[in-house]
């Protein structure tokens, strides 16, 4: 009810103010809780606050802080378990192909590991971008996994089991993936548009529906009796060139890797430089203000969900017809959920998603080698990934905590100034508290 937004306001006593020395341009008062600041303040902040409270750099400084904190926590944990954390991190990088292992098996090399990492990277980036665009539009698409599954399934059924040639099959796979994802995303958006159904609830429920429906069709029609998975798709339809010999070692070339990077850059351009991008961000930042400025809010929500779904569809085909070549019935991939944390770690920024996707897939693919080299249990590798994701999800908390400490520093400065202390030459300080992050 808009009545509740309305605060009792204060009118101005003309005589009083005319006598006071207020600068007419800056001395204003809006809400009583939040006093407009008109005097510059000298604020004592330690190096930590100084480094992290600058809002202009927070898009990069906060994720770095998250990673740093998680690395410290992981190091302590590994230390307690008797492993040298530094060696563990090195073996992660070796396993993922970023640095040379001491020894390779015949026919394999650093390039094999790296290509494997990039193959895993591709769907992760697409999925993180799908989460990112929804976030920016003020929506939470938690149904990435379901959208990936239906896209991968339809692409497998329509193209993967057909005899189409590679030139037709590969673009067709991408198109079908996008269309299927956009359809599911659009359905969620439509439910919100038409019936105001919360997109989180709708996408979770659709996850279940898609998971069991796809499982049914695979088990009835497309099951490989030996592997108990769906039948393997044709090489022509795959978005990866598996086991290709390059420089004497086997690599799998992810054909969509470049595409994924391009899509990330394109998405950044889209959000920053296009009309629709402006509208999506406006709806995401403040629906009432967006409506006021003439944006059709619910239609924009529908479009945002379709775009998010289309990106999830690309993730689906590059996962089920790239990283894998078949579908396990009755399972949703955890990648769809990890991508939410990956997007958060990238600060809901398309270019940030590139960096965070590299980090997460490195941990994922380097984990196997790390286990065997360090003699730690398999679960530890997953724990490391889990901790990074956990701390990345805390970035909103970090941001809030930093804003709070900064406010306290500012209060102290204001009190000092009021009691005749030093002050008056520092830069003008802006106060803002960000209570929460994207929903």
């Amino acid at each position, binding site marked *: *009810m*808009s*009545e*509740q*937004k*309305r605060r*009792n*306001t*204060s*009118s*101005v*006593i*003309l*005589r*009083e*103010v*005319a006598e*006071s020395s*207020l*600068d*007419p*341009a*800056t*001395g*204003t*008062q*809006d*809400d*009583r809780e939040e*006093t*407009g*600041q*008109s005097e510059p303040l000298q604020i004592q902040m330690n190096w930590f606050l100084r480094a992290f409270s600058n*809002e202009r750099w927070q898009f990069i400084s906060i994720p770095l802080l998250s990673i740093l904190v998680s690395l410290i926590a992981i190091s302590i944990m590994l230390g307690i378990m008797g492993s040298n954390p530094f060696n563990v991190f090195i073996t992660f990088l070796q396993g993922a192909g970023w640095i040379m292992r001491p020894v390779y098996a015949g026919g394999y090399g650093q390039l094999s590991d790296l290509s494997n990492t990039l193959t895993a990277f591709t769907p992760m980036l697409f999925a993180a971008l799908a989460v990112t665009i929804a976030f920016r539009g003020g929506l939470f698409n938690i149904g990435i996994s379901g959208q990936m599954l239906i896209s991968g399934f339809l692409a497998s059924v329509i193209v993967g089991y057909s005899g189409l040639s590679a030139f037709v099959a590969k673009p067709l796979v991408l198109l079908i993936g996008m269309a299927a994802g956009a359809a599911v995303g659009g359905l969620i958006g439509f439910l919100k548009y038409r019936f105001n159904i919360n997109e989180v609830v709708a996408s979770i429920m659709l996850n279940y529906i898609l998971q069991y429906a796809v499982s049914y069709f695979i088990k009835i029609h497309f099951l490989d009796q030996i592997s108990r998975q769906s039948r393997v798709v044709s090489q022509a339809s795959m978005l990866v060139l598996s086991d290709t010999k390059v420089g004497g070692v086997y690599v799998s070339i992810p054909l969509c890797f470049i595409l994924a990077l391009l899509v990330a850059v394109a998405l950044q351009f889209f959000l*920053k*430089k*296009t*009309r*629709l*991008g*402006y509208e999506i*961000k*406006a709806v995401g*930042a*403040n629906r*009432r*203000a*967006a*409506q*006021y*400025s*003439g*944006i*059709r809010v619910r239609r924009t929500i529908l479009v945002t969900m379709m775009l998010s779904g289309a990106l999830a569809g690309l993730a689906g085909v590059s996962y089920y017809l790239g990283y894998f070549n078949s579908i396990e019935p009755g399972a949703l991939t955890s990648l769809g959920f990890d991508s939410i944390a990956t997007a958060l770690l990238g600060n809901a920024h398309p270019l940030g998603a590139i960096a965070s996707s590299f980090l997460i897939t490195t941990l994922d693919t380097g984990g196997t080698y790390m286990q065997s080299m360090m003699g730690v249990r398999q679960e530890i590798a997953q724990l490391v990934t889990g901790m990074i994701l956990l701390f990345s999800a805390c970035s909103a908390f970090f941001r809030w905590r930093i804003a709070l400490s900064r406010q306290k520093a500012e209060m102290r400065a204001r009190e000092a100034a009021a009691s005749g202390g030093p002050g008056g030459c520092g830069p*003008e300080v*802006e106060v*803002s508290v960000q209570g929460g992050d994207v929903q």
Partner: protein
Amino acid sequence: MPDTDVIVEMRHITKRFPGIVANDDISLQIHTGEIFAFAGENGAGKSTLMSMLFGMYQPDEGEIWVRGKRVDISSPNEAVALGISMVHQHFKLVRNYTVAENIVLGIEPVTRLLGLIPYVNMRPVNKAVRELSERYGLEVDPTSVIEDLPVSTQQRVEILKMLYREAEILIFDEPTAMLTPQEISYLLDIIRKLREDGKTIILITHKLEEIKQVADRCAILNHGKLIATMDVATSSTRDMASKMVGREVIFEIDKTPARPGPVVLEVSDLTVENEHGVDVTQDVSFQIHAGEIFAIAGVAGSGQVELADAVAGLSPVKTGAVLLEGRDITRMLVRPRTLKGVSYIPEDRQDVGLILDFLLEDNLASKSYFKAPFSQHSILHKDAFDAYADDLIRRYDIRCSSGALTLTRSMSGGNQQKAIVAREVEQDARLMIFVQPTRGLDIGAILAIRRRMIEERDKGRAILLVSLELDEILAVADTIGVMFAGRMLKVAPADQMTREEVGEYMMGVKHA
């Protein structure tokens, strides 16, 4: 009355907020067992004064005495310990709890099951609440859930909460604002019963009728100053109304007589309902000509804001029609209205007028980003945004730390408002709607915006001003329409209405 009867005394209370004195040297006494009302326009300082008694603010100067002792009330908890309770305008209830659960929240009676496991025993609470409810005729079932209850019942739950905590001094902040006439008379009965029981009641309201009905004495505040404390029985509402609107020094603004042109906006029989299905405006009709400032006066919640929203296309019209230069725009979306020449400075500048997390340049272009030069073939041209923002920042003197790239959230309220005014004036609209355009601003900004309104009028635009401040309306209006309880009671040229007359219509004392 002897001094022993005084339960609350305020001595020389002054409270300042940046740029404004909310309470200026106020001294008064409230006696045990009376109904004491505070009357005044919005922003007169009634709520601030009582918030200090309830410990939400501390006075900058002056003393508060309760039951003959000087007290420093630094939090609502301390106020409650002194037997002071407050029913806020917006209730503070947990929606999915029962009535009784809300009432005991924070002081739950804990029993130990088998002497071990602690649990909240609601049975005695339900009984106690039922007894209290019957004693004061409140008709509240302690076991019903808050969200199932109508507003008037929720308010009675708040009253029960105070009674359960054995409050002796009960403060009601605008208790009738959201009630129907029948509910109001029921509430006033309850208030009388509370007085019979020896409670001291403090009533904050701007409705003189109610004061006349129940209050014993009444303090009138205007612009933070205590104008008078009157015995209600011997004073007329007309007298109170004239004191309430007061006679303030009005800053003179050069204003030539209007030269009205053809009709720009025509509103006929407009009825708007809110999301609860209640009609907030009823059959409102008026016309605004080119080169005319039409100001709607009225106390808060008279339907004037909803009317402005409906004209701008932000809320749907139930019945009636809105015509812009003869064209029916009743069912038009917001964007086409903007393009046809409606600009709007909304009441809530931070939640509606601006996207605080956007850059200033994005906000300045938020009503034109979709057309050239800002956008061509769906691609935005940031150079155009920059240039446009730089131009507006210079011409409208918007102070911001990083120019066009300033984060809007970091700007002061006055400069945020300047940004909105700049954007809306630049729309070059036939009709400009200003809702509370100077609320919370300092005098320099207020005068600048009032002058701007007159300037735009002189360019031949039609201007609809909605303001809660009579001073503002009298300073700029060519025609005044007074709304009361959703109806347009009176429309007349500004020079044919006195301040007192407008005040009487605003309070619903006088009818056309």
